[in-house]
């Protein structure tokens, strides 16, 4: 066992930091700082993706032949942490993290050649059509149908919780292509253009009053059969691959550490009755210490999983575990932040959250994001397979119950 970082890694870290400080502009950085969700301002985020793409760093985790960097897992972690520490907005994952790897794994040469470069450059903006009104965590019961008609599929039905569908020009989705077979084997994985006739997008206003999710309706939408990824009726295989990727790929601890450090700074600025700061209150310190402890444990759980991956092991359902722990800690941190701020956090000022031209906030800037972030973060234990479903998975796959 050891924790030693190599000299190469330390040199790499310096290089990454230099690049970021040279290229991350103030307004893009503000987009990261003012983000109250994992989805920052789309325009500025895409601007940042273009900068990274120009350097060849938009998709470090892709194979080199498709535009990846060839970095080690350790280098990828260093890069990710440097971005977080610099308040860079996280890149929008639907293309880079979800659709891209899937095409790399299951796409035809035509699909790969045409689509992967446009994902990297940001020319295509993807959204993910999985959930349906009656199939949230339960994808097996999805009903949006794709019926073969000559060289096309005809799509009818609707999708929900489609993040940024109103910004997207492309969707990858799961559709039912066979009703006779077993529920999960009649599903196919399809790509489509969002401007096709018969598609309607209705943004859903969230608790934070921002339209992040959408409902998407399909009425006799014709999609060429060439847009199928993998075999017909084998969409579940492709989807499962994505789900594993989505869950296993994320690391929560680095973001949480930065958030906690910010909470500490906030607490040091709040005054209390006895002319001390909130930070000096024992009860605050104990809450803080528990969060810090739990974040560090998660950090090492994630390192253990990564280390098992490096040496060829299968982290299996342990990624369900980091999803549960990570999201519940995220929620706890947003609560800790609220507990610092009291009544001043209640002021609702969405105009102060627009990173390109933020209005001057009432009160300190750090208080502006606290409530929207708290509210938005309630979703993390719901999406990506609800934490209840994750617990079922762990019970079955890890504990053998």
């Amino acid at each position, binding site marked *: 066992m050891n924790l030693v970082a190599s000299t190469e890694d330390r040199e790499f870290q310096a290089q990454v930091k230099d690049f970021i400080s040279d290229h991350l502009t103030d307004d893009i950085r503000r987009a990261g700082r003012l983000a109250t969700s994992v989805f920052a301002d789309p325009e500025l985020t895409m601007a940042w993706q273009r900068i990274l793409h120009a350097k060849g760093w938009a998709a470090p985790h892709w194979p080199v032949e498709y535009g990846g960097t060839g970095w080690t897992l350790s280098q990828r972690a260093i890069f990710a942490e440097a971005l977080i520490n610099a308040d860079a907005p996280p890149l929008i994952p639907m293309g880079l993290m979800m659709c891209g790897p899937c095409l790399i794994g299951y796409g035809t040469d035509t699909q790969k050649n045409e689509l992967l470069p446009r994902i990297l450059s940001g020319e295509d903006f993807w959204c993910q059509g999985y*959930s349906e009104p*009656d199939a*949230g*965590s*339960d994808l*097996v*019961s999805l009903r949006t149908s794709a019926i073969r008609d000559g060289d096309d599929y005809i799509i009818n039905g609707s999708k*929900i*919780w489609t993040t940024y569908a109103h910004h997207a020009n492309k969707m990858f989705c799961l559709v039912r292509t066979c009703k006779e077979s077993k529920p999960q084997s009649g599903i196919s994985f399809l790509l489509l253009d969002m401007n096709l006739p018969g598609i309607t997008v209705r943004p*859903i*206003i*969230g*608790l934070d*009053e921002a339209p992040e*999710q959408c409902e998407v309706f399909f009425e006799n939408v014709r999609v060429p059969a060439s847009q199928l990824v993998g075999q017909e009726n084998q969409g579940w295989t492709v989807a499962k691959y994505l789900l594993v990727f989505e869950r296993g790929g994320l690391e929560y601890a680095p973001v949480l550490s930065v958030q906690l450090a910010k909470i500490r700074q906030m607490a040091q*600025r*709040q*005054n*209390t*009755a*006895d*002319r001390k700061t*909130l930070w000096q*209150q024992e*009860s605050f310190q104990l809450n803080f210490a528990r969060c810090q402890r739990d974040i560090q444990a998660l950090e090492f759980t994630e390192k253990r999983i990564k280390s098992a991956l490096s040496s060829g092991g299968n982290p299996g359902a342990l990624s369900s575990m980091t999803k549960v722990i990570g999201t519940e800690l995220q*929620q706890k941190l947003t*609560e800790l932040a*609220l*507990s*610092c701020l*009291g*009544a*001043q*956090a*209640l*002021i*609702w*000022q969405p105009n102060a959250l627009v990173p390109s031209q933020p209005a001057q906030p*009432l*009160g*300190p800037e750090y*208080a502006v994001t606290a*409530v929207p972030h708290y*509210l938005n973060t*309630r*979703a993390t*234990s*719901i*999406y990506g397979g*609800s*934490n*209840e479903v994750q*617990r079922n998975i762990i019970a079955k796959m890890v504990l053998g119950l």
Partner: protein
Amino acid sequence: MNFELDDEQRLLADSAERFLTQSYSFESRRQRVKQGRQLDHDVWQAFADAGWFHLPFSEAEGGLGGRLQDSMVLMQTLAKGLIIEPLWANTYLAGSLIKRINHPLKQPWLESLMAGKGHFALAVHEYEQAFSITNSCNTLATHEATGYRLNGRKCVVLNAELAQWIFVLANIDDELALLAVERDTAGVHVSGHRLVDGSRAAEVTFNNVLIAEENRLQASGGISLLMQQTLHEAGLALAAEACGIIDALMSTTLAFVKTRKQFGVAIGQFQALQHRLVNMFMMSENCRSLLYAATLKAEERHDDASVVYHRLQAMVAEYGRHIAQECIQLHGGMGMTDEVMVGHYLKRLLCIESLTGDLRHHLLASIEPVSTQANVA
């Protein structure tokens, strides 16, 4: 002992419920929030007509008797509708203050308040200040020949946009003072905004504002005690609202889990969810029990009325948050939208938690100075 509503209270609850059903739909409320209107005059008039502005005041003050229980019933019932009008801020927060002060305008203020005409605000909170009322206050007033000069800034002042008078907590010679400031006085700047729950408040800045000597408010027992009594009475009404919200969250969510299906069965059939719902239910019943306890003890002026009040606040803050968050989780994606009630209930609970003191404040204030034995029931 008796925990049943009497006939009068039942009528009050019925009329409040009828008002919500007939005149306060979720959709009309959303529209008003969106428009940012400061007051819906029809709604406000309906409150006045129902006599709700008179409820917390004694007959001597011109009110309806001022039984705390009645206000409890009203606030618990109206909670379900998430009233955005400044009923609490004006009637309970400012009202509880006015009834306790000595001031030449006291009676006219009360009368206009009860008539639904007078609007008042109490300015307590400041930026970068964890909850504290009594010991620290960066808003300062200095002596002048004819009174005081006030400088400083208050945040989250409820009802400040409508108020004719703002009661401002300030320091004078390192002593806590309350100043009655007319909103139109030179140097007072009110910058209105929305709160997270859709109601309105304002940042109020005081720039060399001249205050007449008589507008430094006096109360027997001093300003600290006045503030404490005011916050307890108003806070009790607010806690009643929180309990009403908790009830509404529970019934909404129970109805939801009985119909929403996943994996082919109603999600209320899943034992893991059932046990969580049972925990939430037990919490909600405990909140109700403490609400009754705090209200009756305050009404009957028990020695421990004050500590029980703080226990109630500490409980609704902690359990209310837990219940609301669980309700959102149980609603799944729908719970995260502006379209269903649960999220709005959570937002209102966030406000309630912060307005009269934080959890730590309430917990520490809830400990009796000496150990007592259990009381006779």
